């Protein structure tokens, strides 16, 4: 189940990152399960969704600060010094929304789950732990020329696929 879903989200991440920010993912880890907390690379955006048969899920992109700054620079065509600026965080949040929208559209059209997105949240800081309370998730670490990125999804409830 998770393998199929993970592939959808990783493919969407790869294509949207390229289209929005012109950045390539050059290497990906194999998917691995995370049952507890994990250390953030520095900038995280989370989006939740829910659909038919009590299916619920959440999708996290967790990005190193250097990669986040490059993404923001490329999207806005201007340099941003501080990733904590509202406009910079908005870019990361919007990218998360766009990736999740793209992936959920594919899932809805192919698996009829009727998933709907909630607005994303985003935060940035050093030594932050992302708590995975009550939800086992699957993670893929993506490498780019500008830094690393975790792609993390968790689903619960219903027969997903």
């Amino acid at each position, binding site marked *: 189940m998770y393998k199929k879903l993970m592939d959808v989200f990783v493919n969407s991440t790869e294509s949207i990152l390229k289209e*929005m920010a012109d950045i390539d993912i050059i290497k990906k880890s194999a998917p691995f399960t995370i049952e507890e907390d994990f250390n953030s690379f520095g900038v995280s955006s989370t989006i939740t969704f829910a659909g038919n048969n009590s299916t619920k899920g959440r999708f996290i992109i967790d990005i190193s600060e250097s990669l986040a700054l490059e993404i923001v620079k490329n999207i*806005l065509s201007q340099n941003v010094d501080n990733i904590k600026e509202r406009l910079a965080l908005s870019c990361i949040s919007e990218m998360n*929304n766009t990736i999740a*929208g793209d992936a959920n559209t594919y899932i809805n059209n192919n698996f009829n789950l009727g998933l709907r997105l909630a607005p994303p949240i985003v935060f940035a800081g050093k030594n932050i732990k992302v708590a995975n309370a009550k939800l086992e998730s699957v993670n893929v670490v993506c490498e780019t020329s500008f830094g690393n990125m975790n792609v993390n999804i968790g689903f619960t409830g219903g027969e997903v696929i």
Partner: protein
Amino acid sequence: MKKILIVDDSLMIHTMLKKTLENQGYKVCGEAKNGKEGIELFESCGPDIIFMDITMPVMDGIEATKIIREKNKEVKIIMLTAMGDDEICCKSIGAGVDLFLKKPFNAQKILNAILEIDKVG
């Protein structure tokens, strides 16, 4: 000069749309962060075109579109969406949306959408 209202909860989308539209000579007459604010600004600024997001807090874009359509049949509404599945498309068209603009988009896609909507009349 065409007047445009932007309704979206993303600062990035506001910044990108406003920059692109004003560079091309359009007037952004209002900027709203959710559907409810969008309806209020629609009344006060009288736009020719509305760029409307779907997923927003307080009131979503489909609900806001329905309410605006009850008041005005002429204004053109371009739906900005990260989701493009069949159900969303049907609901949006039923609410009175004229055109979809799928995220992500760039300046060229924004301007093409305006040209396309002009052709529809």
